């Protein structure tokens, strides 16, 4: 079989998670106005301060325009056509995981994240968000013994309002951008996590996001606060059914690391990418930002982005504390008609702050892959350091890779390094593997995995394995 045929065969592999779960859902009609927000607040039984926050965000959002600066081509999203709240109808009030709708549990099992199994066997605490609401959180009790709070955002609003109020919007204000404003107005759930002083969270915390209902937007909100001297590693995974329309996912993730705290945030994003002709797929427009608030704090983002029709996000770090550290490790793969405009912002405020950016973009099919990053060294950031490396790999001759690195330095003591490479997956490399007996399919997968190694080595073990598999599946007909 020739290389081209081999790759075409791979290309025809279907999206594995494209099923729809048949659960009754309790949804609001499409459309968005202040009444929609009041209705969300009412259904969720939220306090007035949150209603006020949402309304302020909504009013601000109305003054804003849908941004168009990214290097992506998208269909216009009609925000009045979207459903802003959809919850699986609970059979009754849930007391424990055992009472979760079996259909839902089955869904999560299909996704390979059986909550039951997770609970029993592994050391990962999972919060699962289905459409708009969190359906089950495992291990909460065990974590509570250490004072760790890990629960759905709705629960946090009820149980820990002082923490939520203090930190909500403190890193990503609703005024930040169009999608953060929209999210702040209508977010329906998400995960909340607080690690108390000096506690090293003994297990990986994980959230699994799933968009199920048709015509819904998913707007979840994640807030992680690591108090002084604490450490936490957090994982996020995402899938969605196959649908012909473009579904919007506009999440906001805020991280706060106080003095000497460390937060490691890993994402494996596998939203439905659309079909081979570019029809359907998720618009993944997410705002993720971490604040290294305390001295010697550290925030590390690792993302493997293989899904979505459009991925448009820049997980960033504000390095406010002296000697704080920000890291960004990214693999973004675009195949068929997928587009990605992703990267990071490292804002150096504190003295001796350090940041590292490693970005690997892989373009195949007619995919377009853009790295866009900002290294911003402010005036007071004495002896700041940055190292950036942006590598692009092209598979075939119909795809594109683009790099837009922005560097702004206002302190002469800063050291900023940037390296960038673009390579084409070599026929030489493939032939070399073939000549040693390795098939073209295995060779491509091996070469791409090697290319991404620096990023995969940052992922927790189980995730690294999943990421590698995902990459192999997503490579779909790469060299043409």
């Amino acid at each position, binding site marked *: 079989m020739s290389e081209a045929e081999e790759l075409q065969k791979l290309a025809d592999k279907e999206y594995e998670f494209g099923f729809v779960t048949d659960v009754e859902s309790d949804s609001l009609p499409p459309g968005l106005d202040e009444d929609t927000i009041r209705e969300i607040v009412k259904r969720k039984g939220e306090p007035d301060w949150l209603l006020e926050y949402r309304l302020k965000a909504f009013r601000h959002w109305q003054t804003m325009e849908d941004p168009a600066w990214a290097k992506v081509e998208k269909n216009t999203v009609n925000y009045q056509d979207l459903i802003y709240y959809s919850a699986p109808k609970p059979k009754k009030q849930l007391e424990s995981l055992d009472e979760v709708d079996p259909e839902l549990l089955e869904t999560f099992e299909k996704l390979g994240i059986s909550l039951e199994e997770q609970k029993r066997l592994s050391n990962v605490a999972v919060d699962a968000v289905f459409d708009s609401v969190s359906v089950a959180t495992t291990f909460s009790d065990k974590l509570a013994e250490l004072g760790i709070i890990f629960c759905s955002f709705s629960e946090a609003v009820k149980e820990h309002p002082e923490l939520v109020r203090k930190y909500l919007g403190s890193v990503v204000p609703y005024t930040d951008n169009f999608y953060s404003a929209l999210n702040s107005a209508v977010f329906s759930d998400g995960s909340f996590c607080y690690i108390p002083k000096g506690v090293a969270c003994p297990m990986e915390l994980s959230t699994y996001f799933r968009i199920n209902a048709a015509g819904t937007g998913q707007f979840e909100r994640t807030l992680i606060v690591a108090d002084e001297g604490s450490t936490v590693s957090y994982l996020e995974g995402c899938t969605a059914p196959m649908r012909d329309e473009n579904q919007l996912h506009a999440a906001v993730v805020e991280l706060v690391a106080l003095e000497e705290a460390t937060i490691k945030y890993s994402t494996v994003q596998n939203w439905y990418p659309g079909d081979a002709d570019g029809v359907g797929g998720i618009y993944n427009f997410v705002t993720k930002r971490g604040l290294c608030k305390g001295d010697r704090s550290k925030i590390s983002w690792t993302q493997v982005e293989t899904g979505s029709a459009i991925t448009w996000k820049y997980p960033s770090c504000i390095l406010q504390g002296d000697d704080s550290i920000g890291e960004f490790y990214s693999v973004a793969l675009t195949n068929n008609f997928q587009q990605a405009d992703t990267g990071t912002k490292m804002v150096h405020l504190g003295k001796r702050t350090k940041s590292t950016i490693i970005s690997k973009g892989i373009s195949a099919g007619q995919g377009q892959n853009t790295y866009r990053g900002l290294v911003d060294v402010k005036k007071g950031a004495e002896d700041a350091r940055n190292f950036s490396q942006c590598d692009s790999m092209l598979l075939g001759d119909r795809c594109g890779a683009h790099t837009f690195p922005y560097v702004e330095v206002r302190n002469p003591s800063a050291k900023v390094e940037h390296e960038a490479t673009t390579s084409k997956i070599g026929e030489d490399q493939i*032939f070399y593997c073939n000549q040693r007996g390795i098939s073209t399919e295995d060779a491509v997968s091996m070469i791409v995995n090697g290319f991404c190694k620096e990023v995969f080595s940052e992922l927790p073990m189980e995730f690294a394995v999943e990421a590698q598999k995902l990459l192999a599946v997503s490579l779909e007909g790469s060299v043409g």
Partner: protein
Amino acid sequence: MSAHENEEKMILDVKDLHASVEGSPILNGMNLSLKPGEVHAIMGPNGSGKSTFANVLAGREDYTVEKGSVRYRDLDLLDLDPEERACEGIFLAFQYPVSIPGISNAYFLRSALNAVRRYKEEPEVDAVDFLQLVRSKMELVGMDEKLLQRSVNDGFSGGEKKRNEILQMAVLDPKLAILDETDSGLDIDALRIVAEGVNALRGGDRSFIVVTHYQRLLDYIVPDHVHVLSEGQIVRSGDKTLAHELEREGYSWLESGHAAEKSQEAS
């Protein structure tokens, strides 16, 4: 089949092979026969088609076979994909070994070995057995174990790359090994070490085709037969003394009417 018949059997039989690259003909009626266990050297000036011949045997896509046949053991070689040829025991030691960043030499080699074993319907080797095997082969070719954990040929010196090719050969245990200008870019010490590795793998039924521009490699890897290639045809064949003759006289004699001297079969 009797032992006698087996002896007579060719491992490789190339007949009237014509091949082109991007439309320009490079091989113009090449003939060559190898018996199991023989070492044949193919010499010739730059552009004579030596590397093309090596790559055509390995099945590289950019080379188009226009005419002729290649029997390899009982197989029509030209019918097979490159990876099938590899699994059937053809090994090409590359003139320019390719690097694969991020993939360790050990992982690559084990993947290759297991691909070959799957093809032969043999059980795959696990990591422990593999390590044992590869260590013994590293000793054989005089290679530092550190190179196992480094990315395939990434940042290797010229000598390390060539030695790595020989290590791969040792592990994959081919029936026909083709060395494409293995001496290029090596100093004399590196050359000697690589040649020693090759010599350690000589013996039994394994055959070699050693493609080289210079005679010096043949001081170390002593061939049974030497062929001179010019303009895509073998124009002279002889024993190892032919290589010395070429060393003295160079290839300039080819330019004056080589066709007349063409193909004096010495074996």
